[in-house]
């Protein structure tokens, strides 16, 4: 509450809407990444909470809702302190504004499994402040002391049982000063936090009324589809739009940086127009790219010294190895393939613009759009829409599809919705990078890990982005090495080298980022070493986790709940993996069988420690979700290149998990924790190694290349 002018502004906006509006802005010490980003000088009239005269409580959700349940979990944080009637709680997705900056990362964004933990203090404080103001309003009206009134279930109750609803008090409360300090409840008094709470956005998502970015309707709205280059980095050399003009409903054909946009009165006109378009491309060096060549090059690099990301305590440790295991691993490019293909709607009017987009990066996309439109950030209103998944694709430091939409809108000067087709999505880049890992690990005569030389080769996600200064240190991109460099295993002689190799293929974070490949290597190698040492995989890990009670606890929970070691029907086997990421720990035991060459995962028992659990129902859903996402990729998904062209195009050749392939997932939450840690991503990393380890137990064969579809099991 260090900004009186903003407080005054918010109160005046409250007066306009006739309700209580609370908002505040806490500049965080951790907000380094975007310290250089321009901040609009004026805060728009919005805030975190609005209480209507009808008693409705509307929480502005600063994060993108794209499945993870923030439209329920964030209002729960407010409601816990507000003492309101939960049935009257609604949500609205907040537009882009510095007011809604991530409290740790300093810019409005959704990522890193951080929505709940970064809002934990912020939104409970909002609830407590509002409750205090409502109580004060009632106390003033009754001419009693604040200590003589109580709040609960949406009412303030005073001496003699006098009662006023929050709706009745909202206007008077909005005129009071926002209290500087409020006491927050201890966890033992929570009545909402920790209680399984059904999502408040379910009804609208069951009757088609929920509005996603692709559903935006505006007067005179045109639809654009873009003919993107067939090869990354290629440029338009010439085009022939003769045939396009003959397609009824097409209105514009315009060249943009990344291709040619065909605009029409509706999607089908634009799409048919694009089908009729002929473009000649200046292909450039990207046309030479081929996946086998890239893997060969990466594998060569893995055998040479790279940038040191972690030093072994004793450089000669491997010399003490009695037994050595050497393994090379290959991971493909992966598309995010959210159900809703990316899209962006823009309406420019004079010197202002409105954008509607399901963005994980409002705080990045809004200034990027302003720049592309030649406007100031405060002249661009970015409305956050529901998004049909994202998994990182809607958090692009270079705002690719938003900037593309701005470019098109500037040229055609009509309201326009830019729609990517599934083919555009699968072939459009911004993939999880491909990587090669090489590990030489040694066991001493007692079967203990003597040394571990680890090389990672792959593109850097952060190079050239605004995150580079914060997350690339001494040439090491933290997202390339996380999960190895910071392994919880007691491996003092783990040496890690990184080779960041730039390829013309644009890359991006994909659910669980670096952990999506590092966990596989760590956990399958751990299994391999356990086998080499003749030890049980759980017992072998336990010895290396003696100093890590939290990780050990989760490992033990998964082992005991899965009946680790108990007999299974013939033809079935179990595998285990445990991994720490995003401040949380997840262990999984997968039970598998083979039908011919097809892997069947019957069951996954997951143990999860994500600190204090806000909503057990959404945490369970996120664990199931993260497993389904990781399992589909582990079994089936890959993006490959031939002559620079992406060989996949849609869900028939970019396979993802389907209903009949979904295992039964049992989720066990570890008790404890005094605050929440990450939820959306940490259950993705363990699934692939758990399945691979189970398949080893079944067949004796090691998976060294994902997806597993390329394995010959029989």
């Amino acid at each position, binding site marked *: 509450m260090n900004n009186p002018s903003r407080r005054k502004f918010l109160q005046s906006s409250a007066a306009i809407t006739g309700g209580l509006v609370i908002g505040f802005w806490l500049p965080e010490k951790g907000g380094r990444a975007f310290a250089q980003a321009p901040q609009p000088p004026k805060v728009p009239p919005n805030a975190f909470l609005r209480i209507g005269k009808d008693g409705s409580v509307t929480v502005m959700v600063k994060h993108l809702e794209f499945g*993870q349940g923030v439209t329920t979990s964030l209002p729960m944080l407010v409601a816990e302190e507000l003492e309101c009637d939960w049935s009257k709680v609604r949500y609205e997705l907040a537009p882009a504004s510095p007011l809604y900056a991530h409290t740790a990362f300093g810019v409005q964004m959704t990522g890193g499994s951080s929505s709940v933990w970064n809002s934990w203090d912020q939104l409970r404080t909002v609830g407590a402040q509002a409750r205090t103001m409502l109580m004060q309003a009632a106390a003033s009206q009754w001419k009693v002391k604040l200590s003589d009134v109580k709040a609960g279930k949406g009412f303030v109750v005073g001496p003699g049982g006098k009662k006023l609803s929050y709706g009745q008090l909202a206007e008077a409360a909005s005129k009071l000063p926002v209290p500087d300090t409020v006491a927050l409840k201890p966890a033992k008094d929570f009545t909402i936090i920790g209680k399984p709470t059904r999502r408040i956005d379910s009804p609208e998502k069951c*009757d088609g009324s929920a509005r996603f970015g692709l559903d935006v*309707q505006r007067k005179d709205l045109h639809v654009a589809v873009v003919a993107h280059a067939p090869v990354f980095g290629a440029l338009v050399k010439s085009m022939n739009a003769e045939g396009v003009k003959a397609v009824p409903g097409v209105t514009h054909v315009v060249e943009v940086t990344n291709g040619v946009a065909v605009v029409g009165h509706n999607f089908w006109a634009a799409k048919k127009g694009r089908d009729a378009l002929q473009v000649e491309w200046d292909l450039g060096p990207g046309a030479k790219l081929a996946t086998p060549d890239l893997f060969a090059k990466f594998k060569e690099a893995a055998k040479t010294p790279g940038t040191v990301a972690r030093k072994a305590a004793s450089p000669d440790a491997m010399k003490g190895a009695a037994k050595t295991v050497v393994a090379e691993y290959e991971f493909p490019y992966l598309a995010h393939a959210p*159900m809703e293909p990316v899209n962006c709607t823009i309406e420019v009017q004079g010197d202002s613009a409105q954008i509607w987009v399901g963005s994980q990066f409002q705080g990045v996309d809004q200034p990027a759009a302003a720049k592309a439109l030649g406007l100031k950030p405060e002249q661009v209103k970015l409305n956050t829409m*529901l998004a*049909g998944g994202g998994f990182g694709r809607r958090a692009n430091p270079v705002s690719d599809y938003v900037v593309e939409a701005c470019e098109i809108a500037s040229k055609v000067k009509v309201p326009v919705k830019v729609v990517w087709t599934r083919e555009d999505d699968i072939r459009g880049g911004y993939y999880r990078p491909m990587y090669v890992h090489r590990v030489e690990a040694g066991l001493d005569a007692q079967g203990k890990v003597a040394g571990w030389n680890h090389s990672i080769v792959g593109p850097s996600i952060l190079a050239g982005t605004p995150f580079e200064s914060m997350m690339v240190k001494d040439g090491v991109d933290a997202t390339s090495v996380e999960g190895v460099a910071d392994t919880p295993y007691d491996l003092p002689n783990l040496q890690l080298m990184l080779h960041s190799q730039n390829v013309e293929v644009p890359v991006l974070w994909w659910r669980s980022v670096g952990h999506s490949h590092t966990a596989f290597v760590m956990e399958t190698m751990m299994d391999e070493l356990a086998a080499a040492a003749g030890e049980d995989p759980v017992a072998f890990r336990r010895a290396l986790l003696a100093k890590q009670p939290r990780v050990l606890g989760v490992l033990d929970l998964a082992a005991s709940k899965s009946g680790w070691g108990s007999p299974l029907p013939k033809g079935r086997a179990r595998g285990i993996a445990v991994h720490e990421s995003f401040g949380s720990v997840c262990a999984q035991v997968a039970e598998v069988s083979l039908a011919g060459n097809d892997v069947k995962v019957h069951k996954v028992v997951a143990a999860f420690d994500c600190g204090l659990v806000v909503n057990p129902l959404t945490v369970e859903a996120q664990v*199931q979700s993260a497993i*389904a996402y990781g399992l589909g990729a582990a079994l089936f998904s890959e993006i490959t290149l031939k002559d620079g062209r992406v060989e996949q195009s849609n869900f028939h050749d970019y396979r993802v998990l389907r209903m*009949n392939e979904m295992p039964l997932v049992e989720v066990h939450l570890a008790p404890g924790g005094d605050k929440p840690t990450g939820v959306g991503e940490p259950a993705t990393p363990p699934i692939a190694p758990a399945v691979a380890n189970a398949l080893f137990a079944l067949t004796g064969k090691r998976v060294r290349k994902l997806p597993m579809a390329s394995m010959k099991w029989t």
Partner: protein
Amino acid sequence: MAKFFVNGDPVDFRGSPDTPLLWALRDSLQLTGTKFGCGMSLCGACTVHLDGQPVRACVTPISAIEGKRVVTIEGIYKTSQAPTANAVRAAWIDKDVVQCGYCQSGQIMSAVALLQHNRNPSDADIDEAMAGNICRCGTYQRIRDAIKSAAASLRKA
């Protein structure tokens, strides 16, 4: 010009006859509950009912539906299938199925079609009816639970 019915209302569609039903619904009739996911009948996000049968609207041209009855997610709770649809919706909410929600219109349309003729689906029946509907959030387990729960409530009704 093609004539057909959407959620009981007659529609005269004046656009190109090769227009997929999906885009007629979304762009001409502003019925955006039916979703675009793949355009190739691979993901099921655009599932609607055509004369009571589930079809993928993204590959169903307007020219093929002359005189037929289309029901979308916006209309399913008001048709003769409403008892089944309401049971499905109640189960979806009770089991907290949705995540991002984008595929759920299609999931629900497929589930209603399944339960309309099978009040006691086995896991294999559910796999067969639902494997064409992709959910990238991985809500499959709760979908399965919700279908079984809706089926149980329909058997009691």
